[in-house]
């Protein structure tokens, strides 16, 4: 890799017009195994191994290069130069070098072409508000870690998945259900013309439990649970997984009978996991550095550095070096980002005051270097992304106290009930300026909490809507126990593993609206086998 990097770079620099000033290669080697089962029937093992190559070439100068964000072109404001090529997974020098050479040529052509367009664009348009450079210097990193060995007991897992997935036979109102396990190791090789040489990697083990059903009014309902760890041995045991299946299936069964949520504005508690997703969507995406520079973006916080953006008892840290919280494996850690910059914790918000953004090597006004958050899925271009988001609170009370505060708030506002969001699947946030600067998050498990001592009531079909700035101002207090939400976040640079850690939070006001729902009927014919009459035995 290094040889071909230097050979291509020096010839291009000498002979190409415009010449490149930077070149990097990243190779992601992935090996995986997975099983998926339904109702006690397991699909054949899926396994594979591959290497994907990403080439990054920069022409022009750090001041203005081919990655410069272009305004008013509708759609892609950033170029795409890497082509997601498969590289041989064997150490065949001829095969590797050929592919590197071909992809360097293709990426260089695309880069040179885009630079010329950008230069024209910059002449016919008014100056950018943010005239910072396109690429920042970063010290070269040299690091070598032994590639991980994938450990996965296929025979044992096949039987476990069979047994686990069969558990859904006890829940006849569940229409579809799946239990899957996957184990993957990633090894990333990175070289660039600054002198970085890195080989690092990690494992990803995951169990996903999912179930869906259709209510009599046509509403599609689904519940799920996932477990993440760095290796398969770190995944929960069968007892815990069985309990989780019972929970997923039980929740779904209850949701089928639950009343539909009504539009509502009032106080609510987010569980720690729900609050983590809330912060990830509403706050995290808005402090991704490249959004501050893009004039099509809403730039919610661009000029807010040094000012209060959250209540002063809250701080938000992004820490890709943190691997566990309270014994739970986090999903968003890494040693080096995808530009070869060493991972480091950053405090984005300290006591309510915005301090910094998530930075890749694309500088923005006031922040001229990377803080190790340039990330991508292989085949995409790097942008700044979240890692492990951790919410810290100085106004933490016990869960019981938090619930009491909610009831007090319900009474004070003279509302019939408050809401408790236990699980949120994810959400959308529009950061683009052309769209409404609003968010929508999708809660799965929502309870009405009554002040008169009635038991909490499960409701279905609610979406949380709101605008980011006003929502943050309404956080009153937090619980004292951090919870972890692990997941995968999708954005411009593809899907990357992330975590969000937060205590539960109490907000004085949240708005929910009815979810769009399908109108078709539930299955016209009953379940074909005798599952129900035989008490779930297939």
């Amino acid at each position, binding site marked *: 890799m290094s040889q071909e990097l230097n050979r291509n770079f020096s010839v291009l620099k000498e002979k190409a017009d415009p010449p490149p000033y930077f070149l990097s290669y990243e190779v992601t080697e992935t090996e995986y195994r997975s099983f998926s089962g339904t109702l006690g029937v397991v699909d054949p093992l899926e396994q594979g191994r591959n290497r994907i190559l990403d080439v990054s070439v920069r022409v022009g100068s750090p001041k203005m290069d081919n990655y410069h964000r272009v305004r008013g072109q509708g759609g892609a404001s950033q170029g795409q130069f890497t082509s997601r090529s498969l590289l041989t997974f064997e150490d065949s020098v001829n095969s590797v070098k050929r592919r590197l050479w071909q992809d360097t040529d293709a990426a260089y052509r695309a880069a040179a072409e885009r630079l010329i367009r950008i230069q024209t664009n910059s002449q016919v348009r008014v100056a950018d508000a943010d005239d910072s450079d396109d690429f920042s210097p970063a010290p070269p990193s040299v690091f070598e870690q032994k590639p991980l060995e994938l450990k996965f007991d296929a025979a044992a897992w096949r039987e476990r998945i069979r047994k686990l997935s069969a558990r859904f036979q006890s829940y006849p109102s569940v229409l579809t259900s799946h239990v899957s396990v996957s184990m993957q190791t990633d090894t990333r090789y990175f070289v660039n013309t600054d002198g970085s040489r890195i080989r690092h990697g990690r494992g990803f083990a995951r169990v996903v439990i999912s179930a869906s059903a259709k209510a009599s009014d046509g509403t599609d309902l689904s519940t799920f649970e996932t477990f993440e760890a760095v290796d398969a041995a770190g995944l929960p045991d069968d007892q815990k997984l069985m309990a989780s299946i019972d929970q997923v299936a039980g929740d779904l069964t209850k949701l089928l009978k639950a009343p539909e949520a009504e539009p509502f504005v009032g106080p609510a508690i987010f569980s720690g996991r729900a609050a983590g997703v809330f912060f990830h969507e509403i706050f995290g995406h808005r402090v991704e550095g490249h959004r501050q520079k893009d004039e099509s973006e809403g730039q919610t916080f661009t000029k807010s550095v040094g000012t209060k953006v959250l209540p002063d008892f809250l701080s938000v840290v992004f820490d890709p070096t943190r691997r566990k919280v309270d014994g739970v494996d986090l999903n968003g850690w890494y040693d080096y980002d995808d530009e070869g910059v060493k991972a480091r914790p950053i405090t984005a918000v300290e006591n309510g005051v915005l301090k910094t953004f998530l930075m890749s090597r694309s500088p923005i006004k006031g922040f001229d270097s990377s803080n190790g958050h340039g990330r991508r899925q292989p085949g995409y271009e790097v942008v700044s992304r979240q890692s492990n988001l951790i919410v810290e609170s100085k106004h933490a009370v016990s869960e019981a106290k938090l619930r009491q505060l909610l009831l007090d708030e319900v009474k004070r506002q003279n509302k019939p009930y408050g809401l408790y969001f236990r699980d949120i699947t994810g959400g959308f946030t529009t950061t683009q300026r052309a769209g409404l600067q609003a968010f929508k998050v999708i809660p799965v498990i929502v309870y009405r909490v009554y002040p008169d001592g009635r038991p909490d009531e499960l409701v279905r079909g609610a979406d949380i809507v709101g605008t980011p700035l006003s929502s943050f101002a309404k956080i009153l207090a937090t619980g004292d126990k951090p919870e972890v939400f692990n997941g995968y976040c999708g954005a411009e640079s593809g899907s990357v593993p992330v975590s969000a850690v937060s205590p539960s939070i109490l907000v004085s006001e949240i708005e929910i609206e009815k979810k769009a729902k399908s109108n078709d*009927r539930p299955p016209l014919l009953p379940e074909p086998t005798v599952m129900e009459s035989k008490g779930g035995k297939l």
Partner: protein
Amino acid sequence: MKRLWLTASIAAVGVLAAAAITTWAQTAEPSSDPLFRAMRDEIERSKKLSIPGLESPYFIEYSIDEQESFTVSASLGGLLSQRRERFRSPDVHVRVGDYKFDNSNFAGGGGGGSRYDLERFPVEDSYALIRRYLWLETDSVYKGAVEALSRKRAALRNITQTDQLNDFAHAEAVHYIHDFKPLVVDETAWAGRVRSLSAIFAQFPEVKASTVDLEVTEGGHYLENSEGTEIKVPESVTVLKIRAAAQAPDGTTVRDFAFVHALDVKNMPGDAELTRTATSVAQNVAALAHAGKGEDYNGPVLFEGAAGAQLFAEVLGKNLVVSRRAEGGRGGRAPAGELEGRIGAKVLPESFDVVDDPGRKDAQGQPLFGSYDVDREGVRAGPLQVVEKGVLKSFLLTRQPVHGFEGSNGRARIPIGGGIDMAGVSNLIVNTSDAVPASDLKKKLLELISNRSKPYGILVRKMDFPSTASTEEAGRIIQAQQGATHPVSMPLLVYKVFADGHEELVRGLQFHGLNVRSLRDILASGNDRNVYEFMDNAAPFALVGYLSFSTEACVVAPSVLIDDLELRAAEGDQPKLPVVPAPEISH
């Protein structure tokens, strides 16, 4: 189409009946296989599907492809991927209305229905789980079908139909059950072979890109319908694809390929022959990179060897299909085949007979590559005289009625979605009664150019069919033949033949105006019988890797000399050569 897991390049799902089986199981008992029982029971129950005020289904069909495959690919001596997988790919078809008028053949159809999170169809024969899957899928498809039918009725209220065709043809029930074979392949040996073949290209510095892919597939096709048809057709196929490309000094991309097929992996050629094949692809590409650019040409062209068979496969085979226009669609009729409405007309010289014969065996008594007994709609297929004494006699038909024809002749070969199968050739056998020794054809070509005082004639040894072009390149070729119903692929190996008989390879030529009418201008045909095996699909030029479904087909045809063909130099901007020279190859 629900073949989501086909993330790999191509699924070679084909239709083939095992060699020894020719007797029909006329009075067979219904199969006790759990998969068939589940399909049968769920079809029986689903006939009762109804929504108040709307019709019940009149036809339900479950079509399931099962595939177990081993794939490996390599480039320059390094493996790119290697995998083994097994899956079933189900298609549920529900028709509402009646044979005369139903939810199909409607441009505004599709969509609708409930969406259930079904994921993969079980590979294990679990009766209960299979029924559950079919239950939910049938429910969803039925809801979509009643919606489509009511939309179709509404849309047609405002349209005067010029052509009152029925929507679906009757067919007799067929019972045909033959077991699948397990996948037995020496993975290590084949990975090694593919790696070694790919390493051959390292000896040719001109070759810019090259890959060798192998796919060995066992499995087959299940079909159960509400008319009582029950089939289980084993399918086995092995395809080795060798592909290479280079850039000529002016930037033009040149390429060549060789695909090697076998119905049984055990019958694949040995190492020596495969090495020769890969080496010739590399040599051809290297030679093309150094070859001169072809100039515009008008005159006789000799299609020699495989090129003759490729010509018949593409120019005749693809036009033996009659397309059906969807009702209520805007934007007019789908392009008519070049032979539509020409039954009884002369389409080839009088000496030609063409038969499409799915039961044809080769000289050794082995079935030809495109053989099968029952098609994808469960209709038996026999030999079909397509052209007799140069006159067009019949088309390849499925159960979808088309203008002038209703009733299948068992040629439903390629599913194209919505329960519709496209017709395709099986073994297309081209015979002539006035063949000349193949070696005389070149002499004939030279006579012609000498009589017409032309400096040279043109000889084509390989067409790009099925095409290995990129989708962009294929798009350019289609555009260059604007207006042609079935654009013809690029010729890959084109030679100028001079009066003294010497040949000169040229590159970058493309036919202009070559179509089915050109076949009437065949001046002579050879006594050679070139057997050309290929995987057919629904894409233009049967573009390789573009669609997930492909099926075995075979053409046996002679070399032919055709008069008055036009070749033009391909136009378009060519990418520059890379600034950086290719890396040195280490041995």
